[in-house]
């Protein structure tokens, strides 16, 4: 569209092989036991696996614990404003479809202050991976209720317990027109997390991944039952979504075959919160992608002047 920078790139070490340390930035400063560490590792592993050039990869985040994420990568990073990661990422990808764009948001970031952007980014369906690291609480600002905080859960802002039923991000995302990829995974199951992120990356379109995660300080107990009892989790599997890695088959015995093309079934699964469901709920690559719909051929500066002069002729006296 506006400029095709890929053609300008100096081919440096075209056949260099990237290793994990090629993607490792500053030492992560999250609390010990924070689920963010696990997501960081999975993302770095994904980049190794896909051999993405660090300079052609951008991690965009908002504000919150998880939004420190880009600092710990050795790619390009954009640690912007609370709730506003998605517009920035949309701008990057609209201008530079050649870049690999990943978005890291917390639950407050994505479904509270940035909720409008979440709805519309889903609808735009710009090709990127959007991770919502959902620990059900505001961590950085010290334990305030978030939209995904379970009803009755006590926080500093709602010490009598959260007044409202928790918002269901999967159900909501699946209700948005043009949603093309919706998945859920958990930080305490690294193999599943990796497989889900990989499916999200390989999906062409806006891939929304909710990563269930514990905050070791404020919501340590939130998924405790599911962590201790793997039978409480249904694994959604399908060749078009994620298959259960062999290493997990023995542990997660409740496997549900679910065709991610089936939107009605996906919505039903998302709405039923009686059990935890991990896997790809919905995926449809046929949905229009905004950056492609809007892509127009480039013109040289001289061409633009010619066209502009033709345009100005209309206003000539």
């Amino acid at each position: 569209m506006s400029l095709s920078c890929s053609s300008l790139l100096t081919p440096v070490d075209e056949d260099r092989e990237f290793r994990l340390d090629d993607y490792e930035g500053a030492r992560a400063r999250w609390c010990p036991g924070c689920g963010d560490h696990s997501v960081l590792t999975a993302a770095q592993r994904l980049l190794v696996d896909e051999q993405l050039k660090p300079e052609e990869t951008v991690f965009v985040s908002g504000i919150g614990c998880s939004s420190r994420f880009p600092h710990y990568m050795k790619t390009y990073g954009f640690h912007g404003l609370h709730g506003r990661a998605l517009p920035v990422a949309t701008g990057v990808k609209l201008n530079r479809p050649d870049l690999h764009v990943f978005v890291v948001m917390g639950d407050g970031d994505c479904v509270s202050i940035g909720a409008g952007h979440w709805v519309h980014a889903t609808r735009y369906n710009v090709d990127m991976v959007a991770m919502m690291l959902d620990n059900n609480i505001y961590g950085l600002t010290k334990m305030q209720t978030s939209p995904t905080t379970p009803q009755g859960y006590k926080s500093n802002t709602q010490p009598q317990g959260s007044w409202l039923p928790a918002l269901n991000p999967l159900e909501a995302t699946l209700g948005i027109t043009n949603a093309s990829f919706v998945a859920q995974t958990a930080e305490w199951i690294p193999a599943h997390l990796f497989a889900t992120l990989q499916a999200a990356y390989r999906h062409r379109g806006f891939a929304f991944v909710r990563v269930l995660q514990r905050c070791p300080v404020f919501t340590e107990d939130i998924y405790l039952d599911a962590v201790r009892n793997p039978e409480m989790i249904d694994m959604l599997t399908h060749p078009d979504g994620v298959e259960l890695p062999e290493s997990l088959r023995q542990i997660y015995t409740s496997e549900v075959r679910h065709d991610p093309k089936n939107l009605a079934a996906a919505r039903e699964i998302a709405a039923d919160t009686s059990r935890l469901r991990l896997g790809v709920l919905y995926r449809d690559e046929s949905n229009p992608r905004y950056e492609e719909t809007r892509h127009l051929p480039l013109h040289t500066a001289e061409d633009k002047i010619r066209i502009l002069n033709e345009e100005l002729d209309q206003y000539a006296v």
Partner: protein
Amino acid sequence: MRVLVGDDTAVQTRAEQSRIRTTRQPQCTVEVVSDSGEGAQKCGQTFGAVSAKMGNGVWTVEIIPAEIQPPPRSPAGASGNRIRIGEGVVTNWGDRTNVAIAFNEQVLLARHRLDAIEEDAILLVENMWATHKDEDIRAEWAAAMDELGQANYRIIEVPMEEECLTIVENARKGKNMFALGILCWIFDRDMEITREQIAHAFRKKDPEITERNHELLELGYSWADSHLDVRIDVTPGLSPENTLVMNGNQAIAYGAVAAGMDLAAMYPITPATSVSHQLGEMFYKFGGVVHQAEDEIAAVGVALGASYSGKVAFTITSGPGLALKTEFLGLSVMSEIPLVLVNVQRGGPSTGLPTKVEQSDLLAALFGQPGDAPHVVMAPATIEECFHSMITARRIAETFRTLVMVLTDANLATGVQPFPRPTLDPAWQGSLPDMSPVPEGKAPYDWDEETGLSRRFIPGTPGGMHTLTGLAHDENSKVAYASAINQKSSAMRSRKMAVLQSTLRPPVVHGPESGDLLIVGWGSTKGAIEEAVDRAREEGLSASSLHLRFLSPLEPGLKGIFGRFKKVMTVEINYSDDPDMPYITDENRRRGQLAWLLRAQTLVDVDCWTRVLGEPLQPGAIHDVIRANVSKGGAA
């Protein structure tokens, strides 16, 4: 005096042409007013465009009703255009209207009550209401005509409906072209140019519509020819060659393309939106994108994300949108991502006067971002400058890695004026950002200690990987934990403004460079201020004016210039307390926004005269201010 025409007894014939009197006027202001949706705007715009093409100076202003669909025939519904034409260049909308053509008496009454009409004006009004079958309407007509009759206008009744029905079934759709025909006769417009202009205006419609409109135009012309006795000669004195005629929003849009920007992100807001309408069509040809975001915040976010990843992008908004974008604007400054923001100012605060002009966003534009956020603020003064300001803005944004705000207003946005056609230069588009591999040891904020400038590493550049952050950060874009870093990075960002100022020329004074009174203005008021100063000087008053294009950094040398005048005052379209109002003292008086800024920056006791009437300033009103202030100074 009241002249009734249109009935058989008063019909004049061409044989009586000797009775037609032509008066020559150096300039004349014309208004076309109707209910919303009756096409008065198209009539007025076409009249303005034709006049410009003939070589008249032109300035047009839209008359916009406050409501979407005001009740028909209500004073609140007055909609249309005011067109001031002159023998030479016209730089503003003038004082009062000399000729008005109205599709009903109520909208005319509205203009009368707003004191918009000159006392000896010629008013042409549709007279179907006089004999309307609805008794109430007949009564309204009679009352309005009585009220208008008190003034010294020359009122001419025109049977528009009756005449138009001979050509079209729905006269509501045709009156505007009939009215245009009348104006063309009065001002002796070139009918060939007029026909072309109409054909252009309706080029996207069925050719039959153009044909019908041509017939209506001719009908109006010949009706005037056989019924009217006054013609006005405003002799075209300009060479129309190599001239463009457009409004300020169009100029901004074309300027953006000429500047090489090809991503605009916006959210609909009056009066800025039409820039994106223009771009939406144009970018389709040029290969750019107008992204209509989900909200104002997302719009600036998308623009910033695009800028971050390559060439400078821009966003367009108006006051309320500027408020919403604030946090991202701070991020642009903090992270030194270039960005261009156009703010088409309207009346405020809050929703304010959405369709009307004001210059009340200056201080918000300068200081609206929490924290210290130095950035560039420019204000084009003419429609021509709207075009060129985009090229300058893009270049400054890129060179200085900074946010550049371009403040226009509703007057420039919708005003139409001819200006010299620019010779387009490919260099205006800038080059693609440097994406050569970053040398070892170079940091993403390798500030030049002297200038604060540094190279921007954009994604895709090998070796340039870093995480940009809105947190205080050091040269390496690492979050700053040492307090000295924030002091240094703040200084570096601020330094860029001083460096930019060092490249600016001192402003040129309009009139002598010393004297009794210096009027300082900014933005769309330039033409009215300079016309007022010229009138005052003709009276022998010692007055000059100065117009600022850069508000941040301010243009250099102001203190020296101010020192050569006994009194300095700003004239602005924003609110200030009048000094003689109750409770107002010199200490608590809230002054015009530019006055506020100039006082702070120069320590000169800058006075101000400002008005927020939702309309451009009249040169006559500024002239009065000059008279009052020069005599106060005991001079002249």
